[in-house]
């Protein structure tokens, strides 16, 4: 037998997935109302503790969170700087922090609850097709990211000026949209169509509603 799968965090295992979902949704919603430094810092600390409490060992999304925060802050503050000059730095940082704090609980939830339980939990509160789309789209994110990376690397070799240091020059940005973003969107749509076909091939949608696998 192969080694087993999902190891629950000791605190995380004690909280039912439905409650985890509720806590994460509430914290995400709070992020949109937190506009002062004190509130943002307090919420940031609460969400850090949330991650440590919920995520199983080795699944705390440090790296993904760090990358998201870094890129998002650079892009948003950059855009605010272009639009408002140096006065745009604080509003840009605040908006970036709010967006990150709204997104982070979702990342923690996905890491701390097995996919089958996410589908089961969402299936209780959402129509079964919506629950399937939400739980499945999370599962395919790594595949989409791999595809985008692959497109990016091939276009670099074809001459597109889209390496990180090329993108410091704004006149190279159209290449990123043209050569990577457009094919990535087309590829993502094609993947979505393939996944939908695969689900229909296994009779998804043939009956009204579904039952759920009782395990992880």
């Amino acid at each position, binding site marked *: 037998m*192969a080694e*087993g799968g*999902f190891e629950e965090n000791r605190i995380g295992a004690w909280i039912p997935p439905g409650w985890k979902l509720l806590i994460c949704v509430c914290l995400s919603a709070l992020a949109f109302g937190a506009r002062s430094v004190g509130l943002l810092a307090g919420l940031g600390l609460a969400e850090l503790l949330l991650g440590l409490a919920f995520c199983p060992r080795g699944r705390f999304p440090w790296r993904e969170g760090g990358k998201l925060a870094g890129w998002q802050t650079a892009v948003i503050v950059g855009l605010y700087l272009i639009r408002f000059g140096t006065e745009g730095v604080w509003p840009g940082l605040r908006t970036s922090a709010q967006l990150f704090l709204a997104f982070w609980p979702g990342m923690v939830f996905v890491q701390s609850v097995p996919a089958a339980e996410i589908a089961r939990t969402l299936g209780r509160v959402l129509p079964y097709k919506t629950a399937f789309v939400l739980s499945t789209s999370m599962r395919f994110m790594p595949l989409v990211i791999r595809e985008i990376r692959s497109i990016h690397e091939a276009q670099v070799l074809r001459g597109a000026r889209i390496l990180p240091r090329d993108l410091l020059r704004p006149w190279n940005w159209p290449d990123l949209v043209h050569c990577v973003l457009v094919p990535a969107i087309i590829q993502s749509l094609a993947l979505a169509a*393939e996944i939908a076909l695969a689900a229909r091939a*296994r009779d998804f949608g043939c009956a009204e509603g579904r*039952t759920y696998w009782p*395990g*992880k």
Partner: protein
Amino acid sequence: MGDPILQLKGYGYAYPDTEGFVFEGVDLEIRAGECHCLVGDTGSGKTTLIQGIKGLLAGGRQVGEIAFPANGRVGVVLQNPETQLLADSVGAEVAFGLENLRVEPELMPARVEEALVRVGLEERLDAPVERLSMGQKYRLIVAGLLAMEPDLLILDEPSAQLDPEGLALLLETVRELKKAGIAFLLCEHRPEWVEGVVDGFWRLDAKRVELRGPDFGEEAHRISPVVPGSGSGQEAVGVRELAVEFADGKSLWGKLSFALGRGEQMAVCGRNGAGKTTLLRCLTGFVRPTRGEVRILGAEPRPEALRGRVGCLFQETGRQLFENTVVEEVAFTLKRLGMEGWEERVRETLVRCGIEGLADSSPHKLSYGQKHLVALACVLAPGPELLLLDDPFAGLDAERRGRVLGLIEAASEERGTAVVWSTHDRRSPPDGLQLILDLSGR
């Protein structure tokens, strides 16, 4: 002879908003316990026919009749296993179909375990799907269908995704399931690789299905000889004691060393997950090796220095196309590199690749085989010194494979382009390579 499971009588299909049929007048009968193989050129409509049988075609016009005399259930495994694995754990994946059939949750584990045993997978039900090899993933998908108790299983191009070991295990499973009365329809570009389990070969040709004997043409059973040794002459690729380690310290292949001269060709073979793509990424400088040295065209690889000098062709070539016309697509690199007289070079490349008639067409509206040729034209146009081809024949019929092969060999001979092929099957690369590197078991 078993009872008929599937009968097609004069079946035909036309896509919405098109006048012509993809195929028509298709007559086919499959009985319990039989395995039939459907062959046909790229774009002949094999996948469309499969979707028609399963009832997955939305819209369009269907003529003729599809009958299931025993009211049997049909299961379909589509081409790409990665997009068919819809759950994270083995148990949840196999149970996906049962969930859709509204089977009671308490009955699921027994049916799931039985299905796993039938395909020879002994995995814990909570084992993560990601840790399985491609061959195991494929059999997991088959297990998911078996749990739904089908009478007919249709597999779309299993050999395109599986390495020889994975394919052999799958065919063993097919053999066992046939004994249990399950019928199979395999769609294949390489029918010679599944010959051992097939009872009848059918060819979807000239829009009809005809029964054919197992005639595979000149390529049948051709296995490339292994030519040991290393490249000679001026070095295009030099790899010394290359190692790539994961975060947990495990090494991908131990230490790799090889050299390839300009104008020479090598194949990188290995089972799925052996690290072929990672090796190609090391050669282009996108992955930094943990240890060892890589030299490409005389220098350490840096992506920005390899633009136009190294051409890279994906397995699914459609992904790298983005322009509005084929001419613009092929001209992109030449314009970015500031090449003089790019118009003439584009014209010459299109003629060489035999796609001059598609010059003003949108690359996105072309067939799979045509996209493949356009993508190849894009990487050949700047006259690269090194070509990296990631499974370049996947999904191509014999004629198109020959055409792609001819173009690459011409580039290698005339311009001294070094070529690195990667493939999951050592039977795929052409004869006469200077080097074959097998990553399996390293």
